């Protein structure tokens, strides 16, 4: 259940970055990437099915817990291999590793609640459902003007 992005809605306001940092003791786990002058996309932990960070972690500090890529701080040695292994640049290691924990202990991840544009959700289908609605409405109205 990772956080999915509806890129057509992201407004690059960086609310998710600041919110994430706020609830994780000053260490955020989101990067809002500006794609030139025309779009932005927040990059989150994908909670990969075959997570390379868990494969690289030799102590088992990073491990798969169902859909979640979980992290056990007790086992972390701070070697930084996970940071090198993550293809999206969303595992950090300063002294010890830190990454998205989907806001463990909270019902909904903070970034989703905070997003002003409603661009984030845990519903994989949401973005495509919205796009289909938009297309259907446009067709019904004879195309977007």
């Amino acid at each position, binding site marked *: 259940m990772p956080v999915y992005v509806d890129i057509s809605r992201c407004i690059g306001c960086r*609310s998710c970055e600041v919110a994430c940092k706020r609830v994780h003791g000053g260490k955020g786990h989101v990067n809002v990437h500006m794609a030139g002058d025309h779009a932005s996309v927040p990059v989150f932990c994908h909670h990969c099915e075959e997570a390379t960070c868990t494969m690289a972690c030799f102590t088992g500090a990073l491990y798969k817990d169902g859909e979640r890529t979980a992290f056990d701080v007790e086992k972390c040695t701070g070697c930084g291999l996970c940071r090198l292994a993550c293809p999206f640049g969303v595992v950090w290691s300063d002294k010890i590793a830190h990454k998205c924990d989907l806001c463990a202990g909270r019902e909904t991840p903070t970034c989703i609640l*905070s997003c002003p544009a409603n661009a984030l959700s845990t519903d994989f289908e949401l973005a495509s459902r919205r796009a289909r609605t938009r297309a259907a409405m446009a067709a019904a109205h004879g195309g977007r*003007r």
Partner: protein
Amino acid sequence: MPQVLVPTVCPYCGAGCQFFISVEKERATGIEYMPEHPASEGALCSKGNASLEVLYHQDRLRYPLKKTGDGWARISWHEAQELIVRGLGGALKKFGPERVGFLSSSKCTNEENYLIEKLARCLGSKNIDNCARLCHAPSVVGLNRTLGAAGMTNPIPDLANSKCVFIIGSNLAENHAILSRWINRAKDEGAVVIVADPRMTHTAWMADIFLQLKPGTDVALLNGLAHVIIKEGLIDKDYIAKLTRGYDELVEAVKDYSPEKVSEITGVPADDIIRAARAYAISPTSAILYSMGITQHCTGTDNVQAIANLALISGNLGKPGSGVMPLRGQNNVQGACDMGALAEFYPGYKKADDPETARFFSAGWGRGSLPVGRGLTATEMIDAAGKGDIKAMYIVGEDPMNSDPSSNHTHDALEKLDFLVVQDIFMTATAQMADVVLPAAVWAEKEGTYTSTERRVQWSRKAVSPPGEARSDLEIVCDVANHLGLDFDYPDAAAVLAEINRLVPQYGGITRERLDGMGLIWPCPDKDHPGTPILHSLGFKLQDGRASIMPVQYRAAAENASWDYPFILTTGRVAVHHNAGSMTRRSPSLIEREPELFVEINTNDAARLKIADGDEVLVTSLRGETSARARLTDKVKKGVVFMPFHFSGTNKLTTEVTDPEARIPEFKVSACKISWRD
């Protein structure tokens, strides 16, 4: 551990988002969202998320200070009040009240603004204003004149019902971020989004039709749209006949604004103008949103009137999904204006130049005579101080040194004052100029009401105590008033609100008891009234219930690019900073994301000047110079540069030319040049 959740209203923009502050052992420890909030649905922008960072900042003012030969000395509240009696009271006696100025704060609560305005007028001074002068003064003038009420006509969530959202001169995606969720919702339901802006802003990403106009040509564009709508017969004939006056004059006034001619003036392709006009007029419900890009011009009032004209001829007022929506920048700038902290209005927009108004309030306040007539505006006070006509000032929560145009001029003017008292939460550039500085409480340290941009009046609670000896603005102002011989006996904000209920008709029914939830939207005249989310649904509060269509003609901006100053500088905000930046620049998680002043330059212009991305450049205008980091981009067109005004420097460059009616400076168009920094 016992944890209490205290609901407060966000201290940043005017959207009026609420959130809970969690308090443990009398310390604010975190934020919890409020999904049931009607406007934000619990969302917060980056600034809202970082708002607690300023609460315990080391720079907070903790004690009253007085200026000494070599710096600042801590003094007691008692001594501070004595100095104020001597300085402010002395100037009142020696020079008369008309030579004393008061600046109220659009960051303070309604109750505090009401008291500051009452203080000024009870002391006999007409010179009371707030920073709405620098943002929405043209809306107050222009919308009162055309529609009979200034303020957003429809609430924020109602945007979702719109079938065409026209955004002009507002970068709401960055500055009022939560609005984007409603616009996205409208888009999913098939709405067309039109954005007009000199920059390809984040807001423009949402647009179906993007009109990139030259700064300062808004009237030409809006008249061009009206021209197309009239020519193609897309007007709402019934609405015009029933509810407006002045349509024939408009037809005459816009007949020369053909899309081709407007295209020449604005740089927007004629086809796009036609497409936008059709989209706006054909849609069953269209809303116009605008902000500083419309108002901060020497033609600000004209711009606002041109917008109102567009809504009136297409009948887009008084129903869901439609409306004219000025987006307010500060959390309580709407409230500060409602409370009469304006040179031309007493509370409730009662005209200051009407003797009846003065009679009404002198009866209500139990004061003999109150000043009649329009006072000096915020910018005029600074000018008057420079000329020696204003001798003393009391500035609450404002930073004209950073926020007024032509900072060097402001500096010289404030220096000439005999006495200046500044009340703020940080030692701002303006406070540095003061004789006495008073430490104030921030939003979470006091209670009271704030009025959001959608006219929603919300009660914000006190979560924690102010640091050191800092006190709420309400207590300080009452104390100052009592020391100056007035009788301000208000135990708390609720007592002031009760007086507001009595004297401001729009707030008549907005009592403390009714404000425990998500607030009420004014006008709300009596205790049983549910509030009025949509204005003008039963006609207009003008003669015969008709709105006035006020034709305007395009006038060029005061400055244009020239041989010596070849670029047009336009200013604005970025997502992670707010206004003069005294709060956001002290917020670690915000300042690290946008640490310094930058200037956006078109890549082609930069290539010609041999400037690379990240170079330190010198930006110079007729009024001053500042250095900034070059940011190469295609967001701005050739010949246009953009700088945010959160850092001191930008407003050294801007022009002090003002709108003749609303007196707002033209922040959005100044000629400048860019050179290498040696």
